[in-house]
C-alpha cells in the first residue's frame, strides 16, 4: 500500500496510477516531445475530508483538478468517485476557480442558478435553492446585482454558492482565494470552513499558500514538479475550530515541515507502486 492510500471504508475519491502526458511540438522541425504533467499519481480522499494540494508551478496541480472535474482525460490510470470511474464532467463535482468565472451578463442569482438550469430544475425550485445558498454565503441582498458591481471577495462567494447550488458531493477549488487581498482571504477561509461544516462536502483545495493549506485542511498533499508526482502527505491534526490556531507551536512546526518538503529539503516519502492498482 502506498502512502496515498488509506484502508478506510469511507473512501470518497480514489485516484489510481494516474498519468497525464502532453505532446508538445518543437518550434523547429517536427519531432514531438512528451511533457509529463502527472506521473503514477495515486491518492485516496475520505468522505467529507478537506484535502489541500500544494506544490511548485508545473507540478500538475491544475492538471489534476482538470482530470478530477472530467474536463481532461488521463493518459492512463483512473479516478473513481464512490467506486465509479470519472468520465467527463458531471454535477457530482463542483468547481471554483481563481478567476471566479461568473457570467457577467447574469445577475448574481442567475449565476447561482446556472447549474440548476442545466439540471432542468423548474424555476420556482431554482429560486428557493439559489436563495438558500445566497444566504449561506451572505449575499442574499445582492441577488439582483451583476458581477461588475461586486468586489473580488463577493464574486468568489457567488462562485462558491454557484458550485454548491446543484448539490455536488465533491467541491474542487483551484486557488480560489489567490487573487484576493490578505484580509478578505482570511475572512473567506473562515467562511469556507463554516460552509464546509454546514454542508459536509468533500473538498479538494489547490493553493500556493502553505498557511492556507494547513489552516483549512485535514490533510495537506505536497507535489513535486517535473514530472508531477506525489511527494508527501501531512495529516493536520490541529484542533477545530481553528480560530487562533496559527499561533500554536504545532502550527509553526507543520509550516516548517511542509515548507521543507515543498522546497525539496527533505527526502520524499517512500512511495510503493503496486501493479494491480488497489
Amino acid at each position: 500500500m502506498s502512502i496515498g492510500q488509506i484502508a478506510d471504508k469511507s473512501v470518497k475519491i480514489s485516484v489510481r496510477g494516474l498519468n497525464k502526458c502532453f505532446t508538445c511540438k518543437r518550434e523547429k522541425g517536427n519531432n514531438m516531445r512528451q511533457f509529463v504533467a502527472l506521473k503514477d499519481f495515486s491518492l485516496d480522499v475520505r468522505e467529507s475530508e478537506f484535502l489541500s494540494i500544494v506544490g511548485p508551478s508545473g507540478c500538475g496541480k491544475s492538471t489534476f483538478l482538470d482530470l478530477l472535474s472530467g474536463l481532461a482525460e488521463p493518459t492512463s490510470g483512473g479516478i473513481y468517485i464512490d467506486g465509479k470511474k470519472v468520465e467527463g464532467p458531471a454535477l457530482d463535482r463542483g468547481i471554483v476557480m481563481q478567476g471566479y468565472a461568473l457570467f457577467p451578463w447574469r445577475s448574481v442569482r442567475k449565476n447561482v442558478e446556472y447549474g440548476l438550469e442545466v439540471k432542468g430544475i423548474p424555476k420556482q425550485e431554482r429560486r428557493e435553492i439559489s436563495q438558500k445558498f445566497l444566504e449561506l454565503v451572505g449575499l442574499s441582498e445582492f441577488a439582483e446585482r451583476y458581477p461588475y458591481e461586486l468586489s473580488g471577495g463577493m464574486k468568489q462567494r457567488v462562485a462558491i454558492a454557484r458550485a454548491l447550488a446543484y448539490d455536488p458531493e465533491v467541491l474542487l477549488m483551484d486557488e480560489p482565494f489567490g487573487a484576493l487581498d490578505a484580509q478578505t482571504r482570511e475572512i473567506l477561509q473562515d467562511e469556507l470552513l463554516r460552509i464546509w461544516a454546514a454542508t459536509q462536502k468533500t473538498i479538494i483545495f489547490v493553493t500556493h499558500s502553505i498557511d492556507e493549506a494547513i489552516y483549512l485542511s485535514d490533510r495537506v498533499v505536497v507535489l513535486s514538479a517535473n514530472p508531477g508526482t506525489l511527494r508527501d502527505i501531512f495529516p493536520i491534526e490541529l484542533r477545530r475550530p481553528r480560530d487562533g490556531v496559527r499561533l500554536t507551536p504545532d502550527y509553526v512546526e507543520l509550516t516548517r515541515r511542509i515548507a521543507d518538503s515543498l522546497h525539496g529539503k527533505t527526502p520524499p516519502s517512500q512511495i510503493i507502486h503496486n501493479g494491480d492498482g488497489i
Partner: protein
Amino acid sequence: MEWIMKFIKKSALIFLILALWEILPSLKIIRPSLLPPFSDVLITWFQLIFLGKHELIPDILISLQRALLGFGFALLIGVPLGLLIGYFKSFSDVFSPLVHICRQIPALALFPVFILFFGIEETSKVTIVFWVSVWDILLNTISGVQHTDLLLIKAARSMGADTERILASVVLPGAVPALMTGLRLGAGSAIKALVAAEMIGAKAGLGFQVINSQYNFQISKMYVSILSIALIGIILNFILEIIEKKLTFWKPTINEE
C-alpha cells in the same frame, strides 16, 4: 444646466455649418441654383413629405424595405454562421478561406451580376444590401466568439452544459458586444451600397431620387433626398446604439465621465 451646455458644445459646429448653408446662397456668394438656402431645402422637404401627393414617401418606404430586408437576411445568416465558424474549428477550416475571398469582392462590382441573375426589380437591391452587411456581421461575430472567456466555457462545462447550451448561454451572450459593432458597421455599409445601387439601376428609392432630381434640375429635391438618406442612417444607428446599451450593460466601459 449641465445638459444644455453639453448640447451647445455638441451641436455648435453643426449649427454653424447650417447657418453658412443658409447665408452664403442667400447673399449669392454661392449660386442658389447649385445650393439653395437651407430653409428652401427644409420647405421642399416638408412639402414632399406632408403635402400634395406625398411624393417622397414611396421612395423612403421602398429604400427602407430594401435596407431592412437585406440587413435582416444578413443578420439571420451572419450570426448563426459566425457562431459556428468561430466555435468549431472544422467549420472554420471549411468556410474561412471562402469568407476571406468573398468579403474582398466589392459589392458594387457584383451589382451587374446581381442584375443579370435577379433582374432590375427588388431582389437585386436586397441582395446587394445583404452582400455588404453580411461580412461585417459575420466577421465581427466570429471575432466575438473567438474572444469568449475560456474560463466561462470551462465553468459551464464543469456544470454539465452540453455544446448547444454553451453556444446559447455562454458564447452568444459573450459575443454580443462584438456582434453589435458588426451590426452597426453593417447597417452603415448597407445604406451606402443601397444608395449606390439605386443610383445605378432602380426606378424608385432615395438613391434613385438623388440622381433623378439632378437630371431634372430639381436641386432642392436632390438635397432633400441626400438629407433623407443621412437621416435614415442616423436613426438606424441610434436604434442600434440603444439596443447595444440594453444588451451590453454588464460590460464595464472606459468612456465614463
